[in-house]
């Protein structure tokens, strides 16, 4: 049995009377694409935020790469190789596309207590930045300000920034949100290309996308993981069918 890259063990988190996560457990294996789905309000974003460290669980554990990171701050997890993209696009509008990616690379290439040399001419940053630009197909837009990108391109940039640090695990929080059909196809290709190289936890509303990309899927209902399995198993699972009452799987 392969050691999982990420183990989520019995997370509980309440906001007042609302229990956003209850006994939440699942794991992500090295190299797999793991889908996380659930109806609106199932606690998907709350779950992601506990993995990245923006929220801390009341109880339970998050183990990443063999280390208990439950109490680690956000930046430390990121440096360990746990990267995320945001549901609401969070690129730096006043920087160019290149500078956005370079800023993501910079976090992983030496320290940033450098006060004198021009960051644009930093040899350590140029090559990895170009590589990430190529991966997400934004080379042509490289010199533009991020504010001038279309919504779809911003989503690509968002993923590019998450990839730039060469993470072990990539948390994609609804990467297709607000994208047209063309963009969805393109981003699906990109995610498929990364398969096997890094592990991906894909939180997505669009179930066709999840079922076509994921190796395994975990279904979240009321903060609890009610089922984990291959897309085929999940489609036929009676509990899941009940949760998605009326929707065709």
């Amino acid at each position, binding site marked *: 049995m392969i050691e999982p890259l990420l183990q989520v063990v019995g997370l509980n988190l309440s906001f007042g009377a609302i229990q956003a996560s209850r006994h939440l457990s699942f794991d992500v294996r090295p190299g797999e694409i793991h889908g996380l789905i659930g109806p609106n309000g199932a606690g998907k974003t709350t779950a992601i935020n506990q993995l990245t460290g923006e929220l801390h669980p009341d109880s339970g554990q998050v183990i990443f790469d063999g280390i208990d990171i439950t109490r680690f701050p956000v930046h430390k997890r990121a440096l360990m190789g746990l990267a995320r993209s945001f549901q609401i696009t969070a690129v730096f509008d006043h920087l160019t596309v290149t500078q956005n990616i370079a800023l993501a690379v910079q976090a992983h290439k030496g320290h940033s*207590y450098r006060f004198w040399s021009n960051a644009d001419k930093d040899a350590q940053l140029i090559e990895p930045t170009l590589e990430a630009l190529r991966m997400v197909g934004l080379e042509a837009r490289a010199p533009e300000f991020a504010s001038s990108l279309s919504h779809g391109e911003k989503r690509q940039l968002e993923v590019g920034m998450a990839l730039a640090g060469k993470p072990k695990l990539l948390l994609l929080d609804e990467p297709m949100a607000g994208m047209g059909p063309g963009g969805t196809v393109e981003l699906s290709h990109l995610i498929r290309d990364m398969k096997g190289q890094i592990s991906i936890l894909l939180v997505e509303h669009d179930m066709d996308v999840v079922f076509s990309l994921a190796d395994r899927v975990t279904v979240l209902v009321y903060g609890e993981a009610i089922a984990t399995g291959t897309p085929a198993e999940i489609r036929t699972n009676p509990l899941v069918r009940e949760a998605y009452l009326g929707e065709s799987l």
Partner: protein
Amino acid sequence: MLIPGNSRKHLLLSLGLVALVILPPVSSAFGESYLISLFSRILIYALVAVSLDLILGYGGMVSLGHAAFFGVGAYVVGILAFHSYEGDPLLTWPFLVEGTESGLMAIPLAMLISAFFALVIGFFSLRTSGMHFIMITLAFAQMIYYFCVSLETYGGDDGLSLYARNQLPGLDLSNDGHFYYLCLGILVLYLFVSNRLVNSRFGRVIQGTRENERRMQALGYATFRYKLICFTIAGAGAGLAGALIANQTEFVSPGLMHWTRSGEILVMVLLGGMGTLFGPVLGAMVLLLLEEILASYTEHWMVLLGPFLVIMVLFAKRGLYGLLAGQRH
């Protein structure tokens, strides 16, 4: 726009520098030598405004306590000079600290102590943001203000007069011309260093944090440390300006660090253009000149200045510098 943005910016800066360099001989030739000391004051306020721009414009930290570091720098120079003149040491225990009138000692020490104050205040204040940050920086600054008011030995509320300006090798600071060029040299150097800083790796991190701190943390940056270092660097800059103002007026008082002074420095940055470095220089110049000119007509000059500021803030979002230099950065 006849001249493209970048060369327009360079032209503007070169003209500005030339004008400042030739100001002393020209004003002396026209018998208006009081302009030299007025412009020394302007250059010093420009320096403190540029240092505030580092945290306000680049770091997005709206501090309403920046004058505290300005005042601390001034008091360091004032207190050292006082002890040197009186001939009694400042401290005898745990080690001996004598007063000094040497600029080579006093000015770096003013920067260092202001930086230390900024480090401590920043350490607590930067745990908050937005409105809370504004209030807590203001509260700290007022604490230091009242502390200085309570310093009976150093004149309390009335302040402390210096016997003479500091001494620097090769310069006679009691000569207003020499002093002016010292201020100009320091301002140009500070602008050069700040310009390197904001384009460095560190500067990138600071600007990214201003736009989206949460995103920066997710990328792997411990944003608090970067903000604290930036805050400390800005504090040192304000301390440097404070050391100069103490020398310029040969007088220090708690008024230097009152919160209204912080507000005035903030207005200089906003007026000139946040996040532009050169804008605050322009802002300091315009604000102090307007004050000087309007005050000669009426003692209620604030009534005239107020609407001007409102118009500027409403219609020139990138400040005077944005109007003159055109494009961003």
